[in-house]
């Protein structure tokens, strides 16, 4: 186990290097550069050249790459080209909101997905089975910007239950410690702000949760179906075990493997990929920030942001793999 962990950890820097190099390269291939984008109409060529020189954009790409790598190794992510703000500061601002969003969304999607998946298999009623399946596919197919704006119209504009957007109410006062508001607001006992924070988190996390609950429900359903018909469940049944304990103990244990894998992947996907949800709900997270970074061709923002997303992703996968080994001893084999 330990040696396996070590082996995986050795890969960590290699994966990060590959991701950051690909990002670096991709950004240089995309037409347009940050200075052209920001200072579009009036800057003349000599000014442009001057600013490009400051950011090193006029040097050969190999030199830029070497420079980028050597800074990266020293942990220097530089300044955002468009705003002049240090990237590490921006990560502090943008990463915690997205991690919070990802965790709550996953809790929602796991809850809804597993329950409805199990229900569709165990309650032997075609109507329930099909409505769960229909709902889960609906979740998959509806565009996020569509679901998001529908939820806003229903719950914020018509019913006025939740705020339309943002991370916390306009002008609400609070202290920032870690920028994980869940922790900060509890630690400072700021319950009024905490309430506002929770109310703001509902719609965006439900939006993501609903759409990915579809995946979970389908996986649960098919994993359950497979397991329910396997020999050992039949044996368990034959032994006279109660149906409920069969389902939860044996079937779920096996259905958990693909669900954990999926949710691990989802976590990574939400970290950098909640682009649309963050945009519709004006949620100040990584996805919206990276999207702006790409559209403005802010090389340092995209490079710096992607490395953190990749890091979180790789660590999450490591965790998933460890869980795998804990749950299913069969997988402890040398081919890993």
């Amino acid at each position: 186990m330990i040696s396996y962990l070590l082996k995986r950890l050795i890969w960590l820097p290699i994966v990060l290097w590959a991701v950051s190099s690909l990002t670096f390269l991709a950004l240089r291939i995309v037409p347009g550069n940050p200075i052209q984008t920001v200072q579009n109409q009036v800057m003349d060529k000599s000014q442009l050249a001057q600013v490009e020189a400051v950011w090193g954009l006029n040097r050969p790409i190999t030199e830029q790459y070497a420079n980028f790598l050597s800074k990266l190794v020293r942990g220097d992510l530089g300044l955002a080209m468009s705003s002049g703000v240090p990237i590490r500061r921006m990560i502090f601002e943008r990463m915690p909101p997205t991690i919070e969003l990802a965790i709550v969304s996953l809790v929602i999607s796991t809850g809804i997905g597993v329950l409805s998946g199990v229900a569709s298999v165990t309650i032997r009623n075609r109507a329930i089975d099909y409505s769960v399946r229909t709902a889960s596919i609906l979740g998959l197919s509806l565009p996020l910007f569509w679901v998001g704006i529908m939820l806003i119209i229903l719950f914020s504009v018509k019913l006025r239950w939740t705020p339309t957007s943002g991370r916390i109410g306009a002008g609400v006062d609070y202290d920032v410690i870690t920028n994980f508001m869940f922790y900060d607001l509890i630690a400072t006992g700021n319950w009024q702000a905490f309430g506002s924070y929770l109310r703001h988190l509902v719609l965006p996390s439900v939006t993501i949760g609903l759409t990915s609950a579809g995946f979970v429900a389908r996986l649960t359903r098919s994993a359950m179906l497979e397991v329910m018909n396997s020999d050992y469940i039949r044996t368990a049944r034959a032994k006279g075990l109660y149906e409920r304990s069969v389902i939860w103990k044996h079937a779920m244990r096996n259905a958990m493997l693909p669900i954990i894998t999926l949710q691990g992947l989802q976590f990574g996907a939400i970290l950098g990929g909640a682009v649309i949800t963050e945009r519709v709900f004006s949620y100040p997270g990584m996805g919206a920030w990276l999207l702006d970074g790409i559209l403005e061709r802010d090389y340092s923002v995209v490079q710096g942001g992607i490395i953190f997303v990749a890091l979180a992703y790789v660590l999450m996968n490591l965790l998933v793999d460890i869980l795998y080994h804990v749950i299913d001893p069969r997988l402890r084999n040398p081919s890993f």
Partner: protein
Amino acid sequence: MFRRRTFSATLIVILLLFSLGTATAEDPQYGGTLVFGAESMGDSFDIGFWHGFGGVHVIDTIGEGLVRADFENGGALPGLAESWEISDDGLVYTFHIREGMTFHDGEPVTAAAIVRSMKRPINPDDPSYIEGMYMYGNQGTGNWESLEAVDDHTVVLTLMQPNATQLLVFSRPDGIIISPKALDEYGTEVGLNMSAAGPYKIERFVPGQEAVLAANEDYWAGRPYIDQIVIRAFPDEAAILAALEAGEIDMTLYAPFTSVPRLQNSDTIRVEVGAPLVNLFAGANVAMAPLDNVLIRRAINYALDRDVLIEAGLNGFAERPASLIGPLDLGFDESGREISVYDPERARELIAESGMETPIPLEVAYENNRFWPQLAELIAADLEAVGFDVTLDRLDTGSFWGKVGDGQTQLSINQRSTFVPDPHGKAILMARAGAEGSQTQHQALEVADEIDSLITAGISTAVEAERAAVYKEFQALMLDHLPYIYIGYLTPPIFVNARVQNVETFGTAGGRINLREVWLSE
């Protein structure tokens, strides 16, 4: 001899009351929180960088430069400088700084503090200096011979060449004065901890999300009416509309125009119409066929049915165009309205005259946001009707400017809103220096040098009548050669909650919101 302009406080109040057309019979009230919905919120307010319009709105609300801009009548109003003199040769500016002012952090606003802040972009020894600050390019620092504080309340700027726009650029967002204490304390991260001398101060800033601003009790022109202003980002147009209807925001410029007819019938929302400060146009790349042929450019001009573009593309929120200079600008030439007109017959004749084989292939580039796609499709329809074969080139912002900067676009649709009420801000699009990176690539225009010398002439004299004559000549030349083809002057809807009173519709229309006289009823 010096021209002296001194304004008393009462005169300013009277002027403001006149300029703010919507003043009601009610007396202004103090208090309340106004939430402004912006299209973005930057990650910093460092004025050396561009942080989107959300950032500009914050900087405009917290900051103040030596002067402020009078968007309605043109020209400068007193800011931190209560008066100024300009020498006859236009080279020496003497600013008299108002006494007794403080920055938000309590530091006194002195001549030395002002000079320190203004020199930040050209002083690499300043602890807050960041290599690559590009926005200061607008301040004209390259033309400064010297900038000095001669005593506590007098700043003297000496220029190398006269520059008629020098005074007004100090009213730009990048012209605001920052507290020296903040520059020392926060260094290169001063943009996250701004301390300026405007009517509001930053209470809290969440990058990418919102800035919470509180009334500055010590503002020189008196405490503003509203206690707290929250400028918050809503990148999605439907979401901003939802927030407006849910009563979460009180004011915005960024809701879809298509919603205006419905909102106008609402009890809780009011729509005001902004002044025509933003110019919409199509830039023709004159270095590339077929737009290198002036007959083709003229044909395009006559092919565009402005009434339809304005009605169907902009929901009626624009005036018919004249030229590159706007109707509120110095030297505006009304006669352009006779040239920028729809005449498809004439367009077809011009194409026939050019001898080019129809349909003429033409690429139309535009940004993929706001009303641009809609406008582009309508323009394409007009052009196809007279004999062009249009390919639409919808680009994200980065690609659009990348392609423009590399001279790879043919016809590209865009806008120009200047941050100061001066024709130079629009004319400079045609300056020789920036030509290779511009939409028109006008280095290839046969009259490029003539136009460039007119632009130079436009700023090298301070006599208004002379400047007006220069800009008239400039417009005539531009309309003759048509490197730009005009679509209209945007008169943008300003969406406000019914409780918002005394909205300023001039600067606001150009993206420079001015909240110091706004108040909330009830």
